[in-house]
């Protein structure tokens, strides 16, 4: 039994402490957007945010988490897929099969939260998730686009302030 703060809600999850967060999310909480790909932190399909950091949930045990640790899954990233990364992903038409994309989107959104305008080198370093369909070129493009989308309202607000 563990108390976990998932997508803004603290809930009790009936699992042993050594259960990976991935399987607690998928099988106990019913959040199947977070995917199993390798189980050994190699592919990143299971990426979630824990206190704003991207983490691989397949090797993060439930027992290592406190109720104060804020877990965000793909389902809790935004309402109605409105996060700048999700919007950019739709616009650039990134996904092919889509299986790894929850993890890709979580990795990209964590990157942008820390680095509002990442360079190609920043993207290379941060985006280590595997996409077997090979959507990498579009992922790169969509991260740059997401940075623009996220910056747009702020730019407008600045303009407004000047006026």
């Amino acid at each position, binding site marked *: 039994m563990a108390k976990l703060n998932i997508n803004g809600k603290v809930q009790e999850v009936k699992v042993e402490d050594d259960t990976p967060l991935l399987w607690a999310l998928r099988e106990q909480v019913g959040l199947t957007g977070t995917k*199993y790909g390798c189980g*050994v932190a*190699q592919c990143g399909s299971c990426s979630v945010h824990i206190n704003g950091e991207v983490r691989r949930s397949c090797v993060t045990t439930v027992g290592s988490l406190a109720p104060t640790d804020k877990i965000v899954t793909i389902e809790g990233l935004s309402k109605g897929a409105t996060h700048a990364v999700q919007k950019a992903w*739709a616009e650039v*038409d990134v*996904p092919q099969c*889509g*299986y790894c994309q929850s993890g890709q989107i979580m990795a990209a959104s964590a990157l942008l939260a820390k680095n509002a305008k990442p360079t190609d080198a920043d993207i290379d370093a941060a*985006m280590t998730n595997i*996409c077997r369909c090979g959507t990498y070129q579009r992922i790169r493009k969509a991260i740059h686009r997401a940075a623009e989308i996220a910056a747009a309202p702020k730019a407008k607000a600045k303009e407004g302030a000047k006026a």
Partner: protein
Amino acid sequence: MNVSRRQFLVTSAAAGGGLALGLHVPFSAEAKAAAATEVNLWVAIRPDDTCVIRIARAEMGQGTLTGLAQLVAEELECDWSKVTTEGVTPGRNLAAKRAWGEMGTGGSRGIRTSHEYVRQGGAAARIMLLQAAADEWKVPVSELTVEKGVITHAASKKKTTYGKVAAKAAKLSPPDVKTIQLKDPKSWKVAGQGLNRIDTRDKLDGSKVYSIDVKLPGMLNAAIKQCPVFGGKLVSYDAVAIAAKPGVKGVVKVDDSTVAVVADTWWHAKKALDALPITWDEGPNAKVNSASIAAHLKSGIDAEKAFVGWKEGDAAKTLAASAKRVEAVYGTPFLAHSTMEPMNCTAKVSAEGVDIWVPTQNAEASLAAASSASGLPLEKCEVHRTDLGCGFGRRGGNQDYTRQAVLIAKQFPGVPVKLIWSREEDTTHDFYRPISQCKLAAGLDENGNLTALHVRVSGQSINAWVNPNFDPEGKDQRQLQGIWQAAGDAQFGYTVPNLLVEYAMRNTHVPVGPWRGVNTNQNGVYTECFMDEVAKAAGKDPLEFRRALMSKHPKHLAVLNAAAEKAGWGTPLPPGVHRGIAQFMGYGSYSAAVAEVSVSPAGELKIHRMVLALNCGHAVNPAQIAAQVEGSVAYGLSATLYGENTVENGRIVEDNFHTYPILKLAQMPKVETVIVPTYDFWGGVGEPTICVVAPSVLNAIHAATGKPVRQLPLKNQKLV
């Protein structure tokens, strides 16, 4: 068929809230179409004018769903923004005497072998909808026009929509197919456009339900272990040792070589399975390793005789008399598919019937597997299709995971059981890309012209794995894919006066199967890298050397030229950057690539840019074709750089992504796609460009280092 089989209550998670709600997920076509009127097999229309287009092929990322819908919508003249799709189930197809045609999705056939009948389906629906409006208004149908699903009679200024006349249209007799005139692609408005995919939305927020995500009331989960040595047997296991582990419901012998633990959750099943004492009889194959397989293949290279796939003139005699002779032996390893979504299948078996939820490239093969494993007739089985988390050929004819799930669920009657393979099981129990070696010999005359070519491929046969009685003499043209004489599918693009193409079948105990691009990948490496070696020996530019051999193959040549032109072949490059070129044909399409690479003094490779050209005949969606080409580069580069499954003590050594690495974003070069459709044939898209990736990169490395690379993957090679 009872209602529960058709409309399953599936518990799914409410987005973000984590509440398990009972949601109706319409897996079956019937459930979704409830509010729509079926006009014909391919088109159903809802009162709000939504057009539901039926898709028989599997969507695994390749975009066939969007492309097929575009083709139907083009002829239907509906509003593209109101198009949605639904999958046809194989049970339904069977009951309708396969009215939806073939469901198997492999060999890049999704569009190229169904474009005609799906367009006819769209056109027939349009004709019926217009006729229904004409009947209602009592005017000749010839006076009606339609645009985006709105029917207009100009003279009377009357307007109606597809949603309003669908019910009447459905009662009309369909037009005779022979009278249907399909549109000239030049007038396409929806097809031919680089539209975004129509199946993206639920891939953005985790709401898409793949088979691995299916959740059914009372469902149990199974984890599986197969004998690590192919052909070995399960001797015994100690179920008592793990009986008290959390959640364990039972240990099940699946078949002669497989055991499964069934538990409340998959994690519990997996943990208990890892602790299960198992005794295997590994059998004689446990003595086999990569070195013994390589020696076996070499015997095929050295053998006096082999199956002759194609012969022109006298290659041996000409080679012996040639002014200059070039020889090389190449090799490529076994490769696992590594679909991102591992093998899985959920099955519910009772005396009434079998229901399975499975990621499948061939739903009819899944249906057959469910029937044979359960012992129930096909009519009592149904496959609930989901889109796949990758396919790559792994989930077509080989329905091993479906069979296993049914065999396990059979032992829990009426209870749904979800079988998931661990990544380790998935990587070590694949149907691998066949291993092979290839010896090539070329003869040049005094002027550096290619006068003779001998190609001897020695390796494992996919056909022989599928059917052990396939051909004892090893006559297997499939293993020579891409070096075929016949036009149309995978024709060799060069004319060589004295040519001998041979295949020596050398099978192993390792299962093999189609791997995206199948044998074009290996044969592309062999012939196209060797072509550069021969050009070098002749003192000629690799592009010019190829062009001189291609006058009788204008389509191959046009694509090669398109790639060369876009890449700026012959123009200066930054210091240290070198180009390589390759062309090949597969799946009815013509491909070429130019790679730009640099190799550091320490031997580090950097791939800067890749230009790929493709003539797939008809370009139904250029944006999705470009996506497939980009993906093909990633798939091809993973194999080129890292891909290798080795055999030790009869088993596959590499078992997960740390030992079987996949290309990551940082290694992905810039890809430029040039689509040069000639609109006089229909070729495939998902596979044909992979086979030019490796040879163009290897040829660029050869240009950079002066040293040919003849064995893949590059991780094992010292480049300088």
